[in-house]
């Protein structure tokens, strides 16, 4: 098959699998961390692994990088099995949560380190003698680092030590060190979590921009669903060692496969209320009966309704008492106590609608039945498999 392989390489299209994980299994002692995880990442894609702490997302990234060995399974990079290849030879670059800059080296030296380690012999790396022996190559490396520094706007910091930089600047230097040798893919392990909120939002945009410019594969690990939603081409939602769902952010937000995914993605999180489906294809939820597109089988269901799908409506079929208001400026989230539900429902309202509503007031609201996301009692999604046979 080599000719085939070369062909796909020459095409260089987005269809080439850049990194493929097959049935990765990992245990730390007796604790399973990853259970037969498989994932294919296409060339040039921005893929986010997102999940709560301890779901195995960082371990998966470290297995990709080669810093951790999988107990079972394969890692393929550009079609080559790299399970036994050292991290350095996989030609991946990694950005760490703590940036992991060498504190004793200047920014320029930090950025040149990957080049020095790769392209210079140990003699040429000697402190004073080295630059004398291969002046040209040292010069070329410095130029390369300077070019990257220009694109990241850190040229004026090149002679400083990491300790003299702010968090955001360190972040850029770590990126620069990763970019300097044109890796096959960038692996990022929660790179923004040490930054303050405003800078984090800013860096989100900047990373997306960088990805568009470099057109290289990005694999990004985060526990922040907002980062996953805003930046990625595709995201993989992980929980307790499994990938629950892979898809475009829109797709996962609007169409989650399981209740867990639905609950994890979206902020404030989805409202889940118990309901009862009957054989006629209707669902009885919070005392109202609404038509649903799920198969008409009589069973207990969980109905998911996003805050933006609930709307204040004077003639609404439902009513609740306002227990808490969250004013975010552009939106106001009302927490409503509704008869027959345990947790308050969160409703998103526009400021002009909700500004006069005080705590303890009863409000009427409603929702469009087509917005319902219906799950079975065990948390699996009930989809519109076949249209309801009988329409009431």
């Amino acid at each position, binding site marked *: 098959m080599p000719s085939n392989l070369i062909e796909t390489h020459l095409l260089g299209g987005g269809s080439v699998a850049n990194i493929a994980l097959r049935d990765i299994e990992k245990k730390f002692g007796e604790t399973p961390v990853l259970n037969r995880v498989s994932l294919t990442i296409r060339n040039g894609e921005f893929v986010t692994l997102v999940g709560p702490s301890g779901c195995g997302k960082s371990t998966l990234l470290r297995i990709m*990088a080669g810093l951790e060995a999988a107990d079972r399974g394969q890692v393929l990079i550009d079609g080559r099995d790299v399970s036994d290849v*050292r991290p*350095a030879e996989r030609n991946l670059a990694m950005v*760490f949560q703590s940036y*992991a800059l*060498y504190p004793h080296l200047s920014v320029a030296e930090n950025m040149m*380190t990957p080049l020095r380690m790769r392209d210079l012999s140990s003699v040429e790396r000697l402190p004073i003698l080295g630059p004398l022996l291969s002046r040209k190559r040292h010069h070329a490396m410095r130029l390369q680092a300077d070019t990257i520094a220009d694109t990241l706007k850190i040229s004026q910091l090149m002679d400083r030590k990491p300790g003299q930089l702010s968090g955001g600047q360190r972040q850029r230097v770590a990126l620069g*060190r990763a970019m300097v040798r044109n890796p096959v893919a960038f692996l990022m392990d929660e790179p923004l979590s040490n930054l303050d909120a405003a800078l984090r939002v800013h860096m989100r945009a900047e990373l997306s921009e960088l990805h568009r410019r470099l057109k290289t594969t990005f694999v990004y690990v985060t526990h922040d669903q907002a980062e996953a939603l805003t930046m990625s081409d595709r995201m993989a939602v992980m929980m307790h060692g499994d990938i629950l769902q892979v898809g475009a952010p829109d797709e996962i937000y609007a169409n989650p496969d399981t209740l867990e995914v639905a609950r994890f993605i979206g902020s404030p999180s989805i409202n889940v209320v118990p309901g009862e489906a009957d054989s006629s294809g209707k669902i009885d939820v919070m005392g109202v009966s609404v038509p649903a597109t799920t198969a008409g089988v009589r069973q207990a269901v969980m109905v998911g309704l996003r805050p933006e799908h609930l709307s204040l409506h004077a003639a609404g079929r439902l009513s609740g008492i306002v227990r808490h208001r969250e004013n975010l400026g552009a939106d106001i989230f009302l927490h409503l106590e509704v008869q027959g539900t345990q947790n308050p429902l969160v409703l998103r309202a526009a400021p002009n609608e909700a500004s006069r509503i005080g705590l303890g007031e009863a409000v009427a609201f409603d929702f469009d039945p087509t917005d319902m996301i219906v799950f079975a009692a065990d948390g699996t999604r009930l989809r519109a498999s076949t249209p309801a046979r009988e329409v009431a």
Partner: protein
Amino acid sequence: MGSQRAHLWFIGPALILMVIILLIPIVIAMGLSLTDYSLGNQGAAFVGLENYERIFTRSTYEKMFVATFRYVFVVVPLTVGLGLGAALLIHSLGRIGDLYKTIYFLPVMAALIAMAIVWEFAFHPTIGVINSTLERGCGSFLEAWHWYAKGCARTFPLWLNDREYAIWTVSFIGVWQGFGFNMVLYLAGLTSIPAQLYDAAEMDGATRGWDRFRLVTWPLLGPTTVFVVTISFIRSFQVFDMVEAFYPQGGGPSKSVYVMMFAIYEKGIQQNLMGIGAAITVVFLGFVMVLTLIQRRLVERRTHYV
């Protein structure tokens, strides 16, 4: 008004204590070093720099400097090197590491004066375990080594009582005793190196152990090394108990182990020549002071990455 003097109450007690127990004794020692005072005398005559002149001209004190510097410049590099080596090895081990840690640290905890007795036995020329072990090797290929053949033909060295060997033997015991301490300091330094730096080094292409050592371990141990080296220097300059245990009568064969601390003790306490004893003390303080300054000026600036 009272509040304006409040600061005096805060710094006062510490300041007074420092002056009384640190600065005044040093000043008194300096003063004494300019006299021929001995304990019990009514008065003392001012002799100017005569004591210092003696220290830097008489052959006894030349021997003192030779012995001290030999000891220091053998013990410091070896304890630092071995301490680092042992720490790196132990750090790479799992639970067994704790066992090694305890074993290597034992000599540090043990009183050197007690250990000196054991070493005196071990180094005994005829019944000592070292020479009798060496004798077993006689007649084997080891005799190809000239030194060994000579030892077999006559006797193996009188380790502690031979002018040629005494200071090196004492240094060896000093290394044996001291490196465990440095090892513990280095272990503390090693645990504070963030693991992600090694991951980063691995990703950057530092595949060999030596590369990772050069790129991460050694530079990040910089502050520890500065501290370890300084502490080792000061501890080595202060060596005394072993010399006193081995050679209660005057500093070893031909005064070849006549280290500074022992000289201070012999002059100032045994012979009651407080003036000269104080002068040696001041010279000793000078050395330690210079070392500390070098540490602060030269190295600390480069190893603290602020």
